[in-house]
C-alpha cells in the first residue's frame, strides 16, 4: 500500500492551497497561479540545488505554521523555503516584498546593460519582464559598468558576460547534464564571472541547454543570433526519433525556414526536457521533424503578438474575492482580453 503523502495547507496572499509536505512556497504559489507567483531568475525546477541566489522571489512569512504561528523575522527566498501546515505568506500584498523586489531589480540592472534593442533575448528575457514590473524609470547608479569581450565557448554558443546576472543556472546544467565540470564561477563579489576553464570550449552533447536556461541574454545560440526577432517567428511543437534525447522540441519558424530549435518550455519558462545538441543545432529542416501543433504562448508574452489562437483565460479564479483583490492587475488583463 502506497504511503500517504502528508498535505499542508498554506495561504499565499489570502488564497489557500493544499500541497504535499516538502513543497516550496514558490511551487505552492505556482499551484495557485496568476500574479501571485513570485518571479524567479535563478530557480529552475529541473536543476537540483538551484535557487536562492537572485533574491527576486523573496516573500514575507507572516505566520510560520499552526504549531508555531510566529512570523519569520526576515523575508525568505520562496524557492528554497518549504511550507509548513498553516503557513501564511504575503507576496504581492506585502509592501516590504514589493520594495525588496524593486531593490533586487535595481541591483540586477547595475551590471546588466539595457541593450534590449540588439539583444537576442529580447522578448524572452525574464529580467526585461521583471524590469517592467518592478523597475524604475531611472537608474541611481552612475558609475561605469563592468564590460567584457564576448567569448565563443564552443562553436555554437557565445557568452556575453556583460549581460550575465550570475544566476548559476548554466553552471548547474553543465554540472548535472554533462560528465565533466567544464565551467563555473571565477572570482568573487561583483568581479565574479562565468567562465570555462581558461576559455575552453564547451563541446558536450547536451551543453546547448545552457542557452535555454539562461534567463537573460548572456548565453546565446550562435546559429540563431541576429537571424530574427523572436516575436516575428512562429513556434511549433515537433518531435523526432532521437537516440540520445527525447527529441521533443519547439521549432521556431520564419516562413518555411526553421531559424532555431529549443527545448519545450512550460508556463514558467522552464524546459520540460533537456535536448541534445544534434536536435538543437543540426536538425533545421522540416523534414527532420514530425510536426505536432502550434506552441501555446502566453497571451501576455510578446511572442504571442500576431499569433491568433483561441483565448484561454489564465488560471485565476474570477469568483475568488481575495485573489481578485490581490491580483487586480491580472484580473484587469483577463477582463480586457475576454
Amino acid at each position: 500500500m502506497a504511503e500517504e503523502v502528508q498535505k499542508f495547507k498554506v495561504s499565499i496572499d489570502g488564497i489557500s492551497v493544499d500541497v504535499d509536505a516538502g513543497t516550496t512556497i514558490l511551487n505552492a504559489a505556482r499551484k495557485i497561479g496568476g500574479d501571485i507567483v513570485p518571479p524567479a531568475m535563478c530557480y529552475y525546477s529541473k536543476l537540483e540545488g538551484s535557487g536562492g541566489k537572485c533574491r527576486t522571489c523573496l516573500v514575507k512569512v507572516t505566520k510560520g505554521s499552526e504549531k508555531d504561528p510566529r512570523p519569520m523575522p526576515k523575508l525568505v527566498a520562496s524557492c528554497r523555503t518549504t511550507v509548513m501546515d498553516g503557513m501564511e505568506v504575503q507576496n504581492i500584498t506585502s509592501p516590504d516584498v514589493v520594495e525588496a523586489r524593486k531593490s533586487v531589480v535595481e541591483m540586477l540592472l547595475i551590471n546588466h546593460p539595457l541593450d534590449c534593442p540588439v539583444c537576442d533575448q529580447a522578448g524572452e528575457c525574464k529580467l526585461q519582464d521583471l524590469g517592467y514590473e518592478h523597475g524604475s524609470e531611472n537608474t541611481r547608479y552612475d558609475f561605469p559598468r563592468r564590460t567584457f569581450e564576448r567569448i565563443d565557448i564552443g562553436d555554437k554558443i557565445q557568452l556575453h558576460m556583460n549581460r550575465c546576472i550570475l544566476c548559476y543556472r548554466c553552471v548547474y546544467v553543465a554540472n548535472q547534464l554533462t560528465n565533466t565540470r567544464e565551467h563555473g564561477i571565477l572570482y568573487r563579489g561583483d568581479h565574479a564571472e562565468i567562465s570555462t576553464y581558461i576559455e575552453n570550449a564547451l563541446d558536450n552533447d547536451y551543453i546547448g541547454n545552457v542557452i535555454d536556461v539562461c534567463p537573460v541574454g548572456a548565453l546565446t545560440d550562435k546559429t540563431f543570433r541576429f537571424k530574427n526577432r523572436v516575436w516575428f517567428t512562429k513556434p511549433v511543437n515537433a518531435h523526432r526519433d532521437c537516440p540520445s534525447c527525447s527529441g521533443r522540441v519547439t521549432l521556431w519558424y520564419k516562413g518555411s525556414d526553421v531559424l532555431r530549435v529549443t527545448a519545450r518550455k512550460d508556463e514558467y519558462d522552464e524546459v520540460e526536457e533537456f535536448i541534445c545538441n544534434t536536435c538543437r543545432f543540426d536538425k533545421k529542416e522540416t523534414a527532420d521533424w514530425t510536426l505536432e501543433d502550434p506552441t501555446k504562448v502566453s497571451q501576455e508574452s510578446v511572442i504571442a503578438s500576431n499569433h491568433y489562437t483561441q483565448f484561454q483565460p489564465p488560471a485565476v479564479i474570477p469568483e475568488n474575492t481575495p485573489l481578485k483583490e490581490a491580483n487586480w492587475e491580472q484580473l484587469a488583463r483577463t477582463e480586457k482580453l475576454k
Partner: protein
Amino acid sequence: MGRKLLLTHIDVPGIQSYSVYKAQGGYRSVDKALKSMSPDDVVEEVKKSGLRGRGGAGFPTGMKWSFLAKPEGVPRYLVCNADESEPGTFKDRYLMTHIPHALIEGMIVSSYALGAHTSFIYVRGEMMPQIRILEKAIAEAKAAGYLGKNILGSGYDLELYVQPGGGAYICGEETALLESLEGKRGNPRIKPPFPAIAGLYGCPTVVNNVESIAATVPIINDGGEEYAKIGIERSTGTKLISAGGNLAKPGVYEIELGLPVEEFIYSDEYCGGIANGKKLKAVVAGGSSVPILPANLITKTIKGDARLMTYESLADGGFQSGTMMGSGGFIAFDEDQCIVRNTWNFTRFYRHESCGQCSPCREGTGWMEKVLYNIEHGRGTTNDIDLLWDIQRKIEGNTICPLGDAAAWPVAAAIRHFRDEFEWHINHGQEAQNRNYGLAHYADPLEVVTES
C-alpha cells in the same frame, strides 16, 4: 584582577608544549569526561554554564549541541571554526598560537559530547604558523593517548585534523566553511537545512568557534554552575577581547563578562586609555561588522546606565543607540580618525570578500564602496548620503548569509552617528581631496572597474 579561565597559564614558559601544558593541569577535563561522564552529561554541563558562542552570534552553545540530529549509522562531525577573518578580531589566533592544547583538549571533550569520531579544525589558510603549531600539538596529544583509538581506555575513538581554509572571509560563515572543507568553492549554503541536520558531507555537524570550544575545558573541570557564576545575566563566563586601534595598550585580554566598558578602555589592567592622551571618538565593539558607536554611547547607554561588556548591555538600545558583542574585536578610534575613511575601508573589505552568489550583496557592496570612495575623496554629492542609506537598507536582511548584514551595519551606524562628517566631506570636497593618509597608492575602485 579579573578572573582568567582560558589565559590562566599564558605566561608559563613553554606552555605551547604538551608536557608543560599537562604539568599545569591540562587534559583534566578529558580524563574527567571520558572516565566519569556520559556524553549527555557533558552537554548538560555546557547547558548549565550558559556559554554562548564566541564567534559572533552569541547563540547558546549547549542548546546548539542539543539540536544535533543523531540518526543511526550516520557519522557526526565537530568542526572548529578557526577561520577568524573579521577585521579587528585576532583573539582566536592568539589562543591557538600560545595555548594550542587548550583547543585540542576542548575539541576532544566537545567531540565526545557530540558523539563525533572525526573532527576538524578549519584554520584560515594564511595562518600557516598556527596550522603548524596545531599539527604539532595534535601529534603530541596523540602520542600521549588523548587522540586516536580507545582514548584512555574508554572505548572512545577520535581523529582530529587541521584543515587550512581557502583564505576568504566568507569561509568563516559556517555553511561556506563546510563547503570549503568539502573541497568546494566557499559559498554559503541556503539554510535550512541547518548543519545540525545536514552539515559536512550531508551529515549532522556542529560548527563552533575556537574560544567556545576552549571554554568547555574549564566548564567540565569546574562544573557548569561554577562557570555560570562568572559574568552577569545571560552573559556568563569570560570572554577574550582583541583590543586594537588607538588604545594605549592594544592586545588580547580575557575579561569577566560584565566588566564596564569604561573600565576596559581606561584601566591599566586592560587597555590603559587612548594612546598619546587623545580623546576617544568612537568604538567598534565586536569586530568590523558591528555598528560603530560614538564615545558617549559606548560608555553609557541611552538611558544613562554604565555600558557593560555583556551581550545584553552592548545591544541595549538596539541599533539606534547600541551595538553588539560580536566576535570581540574591540577597535577604538581617537579624535583624529576619520569615520568616513574608516567606513569606506570596511566597505572595501566587504566588497572584496562578498562571495557574489546573491544579487543584493554582490552588487550592493560594490555600489556602496564606490559611493563611499567618492565621498571620502571629496567627490561626493548631497544625494550620496541618502543613497548610501538606501543601499545598505536594501542589502540588510535580503541576502543568503549574514555577510550582507555585516556590510550594511557599519555604513548605517556611521551615517546614523556621524552624519556630520559625511556632510563635511561633501561640503568641503577640495579639503577632503587634499588630505593624505599615505593611502594615495591605493587603486581608485572606479579605475579598477574600467580596466577589468
